[in-house]
């Protein structure tokens, strides 16, 4: 048996054990927080097909669709500038790092004060959750650019714009993708949290209402969906990354595939 299959089997056994324990705990009615897992599966079948759920999902996806792409694009531009120009780094680094270490949840009420109880605040929440992480990763990617490649391009007459677009940008791509992947996961968390505050729209609103009604099985059905959706979205980014960066999947120290002078 290969290590890979053995790892798989052990993972599945672990998962099954967990689910069994959950089922037992549910059957024993230890706590209302633990409905039997079979009841949750039944709720999944029911909830995932319900118009209420699908409408909420559509609302959340629209918010992510509006806020995430511009946040990523702006993050890349600012990251490139910070990575390339020291004064930009001096000016913006403290701000970026502050936002990265802040508990952003605490800022959400402030956003609602500014943007009101509507989609504007949800969009703003997604932006503050995603923008800065793209900035730092892009900037780090730019800074790891081999200075010898910059010098080579300059020797062939590259302009500053060409150094940015033909050298720095492609060189920063692997870290940029890492930033985009993390941002995608955070965008999903952000939309749920912001919608929970409003409590009326989107998956976050649905979670809030189900929680308020103590509909625990249905609540779990939505939460499990959000978890899986986040996982799959990040996998999708990884998939695009592997397709787009065929050179980056080989570690530096691998033997050349072809020998000879």
């Amino acid at each position, binding site marked *: 048996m290969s290590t890979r299959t053995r790892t798989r089997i052990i993972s599945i056994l672990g998962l099954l054990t967990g689910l069994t324990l959950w089922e037992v705990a549910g059957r024993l009615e230890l706590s209302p927080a633990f409905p039997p897992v079979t009841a949750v599966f039944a709720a999944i079948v029911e909830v995932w097909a319900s118009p209420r759920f699908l409408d909420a999902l559509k609302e959340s996806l629209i918010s992510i669709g509006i806020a995430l792409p511009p946040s990523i694009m702006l993050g890349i531009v600012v990251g490139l500038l910070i990575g390339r120009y020291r004064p930009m780094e001096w000016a913006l680094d403290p701000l970026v790092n502050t936002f990265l270490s802040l508990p952003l949840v605490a800022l959400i009420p402030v956003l609602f004060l500014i943007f009101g109880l509507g989609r504007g605040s949800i969009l703003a929440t997604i932006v503050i959750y995603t923008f800065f992480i793209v900035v730092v990763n892009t900037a780090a990617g730019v800074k790891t650019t*081999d200075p*010898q490649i910059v010098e080579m391009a300059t*020797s062939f007459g590259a302009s500053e714009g060409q150094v940015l677009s033909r050298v720095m940008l492609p060189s920063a791509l692997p870290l940029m993708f890492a930033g985009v992947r993390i941002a995608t996961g955070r965008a999903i968390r952000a939309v749920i949290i912001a919608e929970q505050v409003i409590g009326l729209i989107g998956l976050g609103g649905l979670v809030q209402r189900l929680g308020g009604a103590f509909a625990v099985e249905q609540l779990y059905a939505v939460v499990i969906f959000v978890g899986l959706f986040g996982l799959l979205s990040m996998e999708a980014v990884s998939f695009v990354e592997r397709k787009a960066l065929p*050179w980056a999947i*080989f570690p530096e120290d691998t033997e050349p595939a072809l020998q*000879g*002078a």
Partner: protein
Amino acid sequence: MIEIKGIGRRFNTRDGGSFEALKDVSFSVKDKEFFSIIGPSGCGKTTLLKMVAGLIRPTAGTIEIDGREVAGPGNDRAMVFQHFVLLPWADILTNIGFGLELRGMSRKESREAARPFLERVGLTRFADHYPHELSGGMQQRVGLARALAVAPDILLMDEPFGALDAQTRQLMQEDLMRLWEEEQKTVIFVTHSMDEAAYLSDRVLVMDTHPGAVREILDVPLARPRGEGVRVTPVFTELTSHMWHELRGMMGDPTAPAPD
């Protein structure tokens, strides 16, 4: 003709002082000449080459090419680097066309224009491979093809075979010699190999160190085309042993006679 007139270069050091890397360097390189610069590590030979490339500004003196002062990189020159410096994210054909792309061609045009140079360096089969899939020798062929593709009058080579093993190095020297005989370009070739300098060059500049300066310029009186056989001729061995004598004096070897 390349004229180096009284070049000097000072670098500022961390403690606020300065250090003189090159002092009063003057020489000229004729058109279509193969001119090597040899000297111990840290003698400023690479700095000198980068000045001709327009990457570093001299702090004293001027460099003129056909009477015009070098103010930066130009279309008349192309550089080949010791560590190849290929784009890891681009395939071989795109790498060879990169110089052309920077000079305004589209990716598609530059790849098309790069194809004959890919063939010239014998890598036709590897057009869509990535640099990490190639051996060092093959990567440096790409570096050479990239430089040739922009059709420069002057090739500036910075220890181009320094990172290769001895056998590959010898093969690359022969290939470069053959290419240079076909192309008839001016070459300035920085090396720390005496053998390499003698085999390839018309003239060899031996550099002094601390600060870097011209020690002497040697003629290489070997007829062309040169085959492998020249390496064992008396003229060749006399030339390399003369260089060794000069260089070893600078390397602080106590058994060497002190240079006068």
